[in-house]
């Protein structure tokens, strides 16, 4: 049982408020990812859960029991650190067996459990080596093994992939996903990389400045961001934001007036906005297409060709540059004139205060809980 709940949790270092009031529920078997820009407090939040920092106010409950004052090793958790934090003077076997040794588990059982975890992570040949004789990927597996052997109810990961090179990162990401599948344990994972968040998470918690911006499944965050920050954070390349004004509102949605006068219909609720109000139109690069009759026009200033797709940077006006993802076979070049359009129901409208106007219908993937 690994129900974890945070109720109005805050953390201050002296006069500095890092965590300003977090309410969150994490369910059993969930893979929950804390994501956000540097300094948003995600690592601090993880450390509060781990027990490495003291909670200033609020309650942390694990499996129904309040654990604010419970030492880290008695909370049923295990942590994988960003720098792996292996004990440099111990062999891999001793590293993994250390927690068991402290818990006074007999030698024979300790060895058996170490062998089993080593087999799971393919560390068998390295058991007698010291960390300095291992590669980065191997060290990371030892760090994971050290956590697994404690058979915790919740795993905590603090940016575990950030010290790996790009290729190894992709491979290890997949291994982590399969590990979660296999062990079925609850996992809380901190990262600044939204690709890791999108691919691994059952539930993503987007944090900014010590507060939660939005909690939801990856598809919920992608298709229905609640505010401008979440819209701009999830998705790579970033969502484009174009200043616009509200035209008319109706039961079918809101009509947006783009710079240059062109109009677009977006199926969002116009209840909170008035005609003439300034808003921002949010459109992801993958939802913009080259269209000879499109409402947006400008000059191509950069064309990034990746082979399968090309990212075209179009200057609509001196202070507005949008990125559009077009097919890799497109022959568009720098200095060309381009016209772009987007499908209405793939667009988002953000009011002046940053909140998103709610969509009138849910995206099918979200409606089916995928």
């Amino acid at each position, binding site marked *: 049982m690994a129900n974890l709940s945070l109720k109005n949790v805050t953390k201050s270092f002296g006069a500095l408020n890092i965590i300003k009031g977090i309410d969150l529920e994490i369910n059993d078997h969930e893979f929950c990812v804390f994501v956000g820009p540097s300094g948003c407090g995600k690592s601090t939040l993880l450390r509060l859960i781990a027990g490495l920092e003291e909670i200033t106010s609020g309650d942390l409950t694990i499996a129904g029991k309040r654990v604010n004052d419970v*030492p880290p090793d008695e909370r049923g958790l295990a942590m994988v650190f960003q720098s792996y934090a292996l004990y440099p003077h111990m062999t891999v076997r001793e590293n993994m067996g250390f927690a068991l040794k402290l818990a006074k588990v007999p030698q024979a059982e300790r060895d058996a459990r170490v062998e089993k975890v080593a087999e799971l992570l393919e560390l068998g040949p390295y058991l007698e080596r010291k960390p300095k004789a291992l590669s980065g990927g191997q060290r990371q597996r030892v760090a994971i093994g050290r956590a697994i052997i404690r058979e915790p109810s919740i795993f905590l990961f603090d940016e575990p992939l950030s010290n790996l090179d790009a290729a190894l990162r992709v491979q290890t990401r997949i291994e982590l996903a399969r590990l979660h599948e296999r062990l079925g344990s609850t996992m809380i994972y901190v990262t600044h990389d939204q690709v890791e968040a999108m691919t691994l998470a059952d539930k993503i918690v987007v944090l900014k400045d010590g507060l939660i911006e939005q909690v939801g499944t990856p598809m919920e965050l992608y298709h229905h961001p609640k505010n401008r920050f979440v819209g701009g954070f999830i998705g790579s390349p970033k969502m484009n934001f174009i200043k616009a004004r509200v035209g008319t509102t109706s039961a079918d949605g809101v009509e947006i007036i783009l710079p240059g006068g062109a109009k677009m219909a977006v199926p969002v609720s116009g209840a909170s906005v008035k005609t003439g109000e300034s808003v921002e139109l949010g459109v992801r690069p993958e939802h913009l297409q080259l269209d000879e009759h499109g409402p947006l026009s400008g000059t191509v200033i950069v064309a990034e060709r990746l082979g399968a797709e090309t990212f075209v940077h179009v200057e609509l006006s001196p202070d507005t540059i949008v990125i559009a993802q077009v097919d890799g076979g497109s022959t568009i070049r720098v200095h060309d004139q381009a016209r772009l359009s987007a499908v209405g129901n793939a667009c988002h409208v953000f009011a002046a205060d940053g909140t998103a106007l709610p969509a009138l219908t849910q995206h099918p993937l979200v409606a089916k809980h995928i």
Partner: protein
Amino acid sequence: MNNSRNSLIAGIIGWTSAIVMFFPIFWMLVTSFKSEIDAVVPSIFFKPTLQSYFDVNSRADYLHYAWNSVVESIGSTILALMIGLPAAYACAFYPGRKTKDLLLWMLSTKMMPAVGVLVPMYLMFRDAGLLDTRLGLVLLFTGGNLPIVIWMLYSFFKDVPTPILEAGRMDGARFWTQMRYILIPISLPGIASTALLSIILCWNEAFWSLNLSASQAGPLTAFIASFSSPEGLFWAKLSAASTLAVAPILIMGWITQRQLVRGLTFGAVK
């Protein structure tokens, strides 16, 4: 071309300095094997004799003083480590706003000349019955070396990444377990250098040991001083006594010189 000339000059300077620094010790060693007559006039050729060593030993009990030195050096080092390890742990891993000030203040107490507190210390030792006792000297040496011991341990502990100790906490290690299984094994070279330095400082400490001890607890420094008497300086005997006093520490320093150098240059080269 320039490089080899530079290293030649560096080599010459290095060797010259080493010879200059070592010469007094060398001369002392040579003089200790001379007869008294030969010792008065500096002479290079002489007939070596062990007479001075026998005389020295018959007048004062070398082994008694040597044992005092050993007990006082090692005893005070152990006590300094027992206090210094937790102190350095706190400064390195749980620093507060005032930690740096505290460390600098501790070091500043070493800048004061010891003679300034000679009278109060003497009176306190007399009233506490600690004059001429090994315990008294151990406590005094510990207090004197504690700033250096804490500073050195602090700098070695700072080289240990905090996540390693946090991983230990997650595995269930509290303070003493962390010390025993994680921190001490990792910083063992640093702790060894610190201990060696402390032993050397205690062994060579002359001011307090001469003022606060006599025949009972006097270490080898007192042994040497007892040979520089108003009757006149018996160079050969003095040299023999001095050689006997510094020989143990010189040998120990020679054997552990690599550790010592590493310890003394802590943090200087990252």
